[in-house]
């Protein structure tokens, strides 16, 4: 993405997020039971949904990588997972804060979405160690892609299983997301869009960073006319083929 478009996206993200959280804080009604802390829902849930979509997106990029053998898809898959993991940490932390505020415990097993998310997070946590443990770059890309596809398919299956397993004795606010009252729905929607922008922004930034580094390295290699690339450090990050 070009510099101008990136700047535009940054501005759009900031505006949407500020608008969303202002709406959430001041416009949306206060929850009778939980008070102000319930508003963390506007942060936690969009983050979770976007992160999960990111994982599935990474799976799609991985399919493209396997089909075309073009390292740019591997890079996108890697970055998608990276950003989703970052958001994932946020989900777990905000989830814990919310749990503590609502139920007095930092963790509850009753909440299927949170539990499913933890499982998914643990699974994707192995993505980077997996990449790092494979030295050959092409193999690394291929195996990481297989992993991303398998894990991506696993996400919905996992959520279905955990949801079925958890007794819905304590229905939570976002179980009823389907029928949010109007004001909450609007605030939620704006926060969601803002979070999606944020994901997109972080994604594009990391892609731009990695692409630039790859180009720089290719240029350096050309200047030095260096054929012996054996000095390249072992790395979990995808290697871009830039000519």
């Amino acid at each position: 993405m070009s510099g101008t478009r990136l700047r535009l996206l940054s501005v759009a993200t900031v505006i949407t997020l500020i608008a969303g959280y202002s709406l959430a804080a001041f416009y949306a009604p206060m929850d009778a039971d939980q008070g102000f802390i319930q508003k963390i829902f506007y942060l936690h849930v969009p983050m979770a949904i976007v992160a999960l979509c990111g994982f599935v997106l990474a799976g799609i990029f991985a399919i493209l990588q396997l089909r075309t053998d073009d390292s740019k898809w591997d890079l996108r898959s890697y970055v998608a997972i990276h950003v989703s993991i970052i958001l994932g940490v946020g989900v777990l932390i905000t989830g814990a804060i919310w749990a503590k505020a609502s139920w007095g415990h930092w963790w509850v097993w009753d909440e299927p979405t949170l539990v499913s998310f933890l499982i998914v997070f643990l699974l994707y946590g192995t993505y980077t160690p997996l990449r790092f443990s494979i030295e050959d770059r092409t193999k690394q890309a291929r195996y990481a892609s297989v992993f991303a596809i398998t894990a991506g398919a696993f996400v919905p299956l996992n959520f279905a299983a955990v949801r079925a397993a958890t007794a819905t004795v304590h229905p939570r606010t976002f179980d009823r997301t389907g029928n949010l009252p109007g004001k909450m729905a609007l605030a939620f929607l704006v926060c969601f869009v803002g979070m999606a922008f944020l994901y997109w922004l972080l994604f594009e930034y990391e892609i731009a960073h990695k692409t630039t580094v790859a180009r720089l390295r290719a240029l350096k290699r050309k200047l030095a006319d260096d054929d012996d690339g054996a000095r390249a450090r072992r790395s979990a990050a995808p290697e871009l083929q830039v000519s």
Partner: protein
Amino acid sequence: MRPAVSALLRKELRLELRTFQVIPAMALFSITTLIVFHFSLDEDAIDGKLAAGVLTITLLFSAILGINRLFVSDHEEDGFDGFLLAPVDRTALLVAKAIALFAFLVVLEVVAVPAFDVMLLDPELLSADAIGQTALTLLLANLALAIVGTLVGALAIQTRARDLIVPLIALPLLLPVVIGTAKLLAPTFAAAGAEALPGRWLAILALYDLVFGLLAYAVFDFLIED
């Protein structure tokens, strides 16, 4: 593909019978685990959810041990090359390995389940119903373990930290199977006698088997080719 699967399977079974790399380790580990459970829980007559959990955990971790060793003999001597040079469908290896792993798991359970029954399970609970239901549950669970195990085993064999990677990746992936197995075994080992199996969980396990079966079929080629 059938002759290739048959040839591969015969080779797997013959190797296992010759070297005993997989089954004894799994079986012994399961018995040791049951003993550890006995002492750490300080129980010898458990039922219901606790019984289901103990058996599920024991089988799961023993299976992980087996998965770790599934591709070891192939990896030595550039083993995959021999298969890759043959004019056969690559997926034959997936099918053969999964069938072999399934067979190994059945042998494991033939040892572990009676041991579990003798050592930990409340003696009144062993009825024909309970045995039948356990068998059905484990059948579906084994299928899942075999498919996921072969997939993760093939993935891990080419990495450096192979023995770590297998449990790290396989365990989260298998969590729905863990949930399903426990949910099916709990009523089976119910204190008042085996209750009917919750159909929903049979369906979920079967669905998992189907989804992962198709997924493994689709991606396996990429794991062994270069």
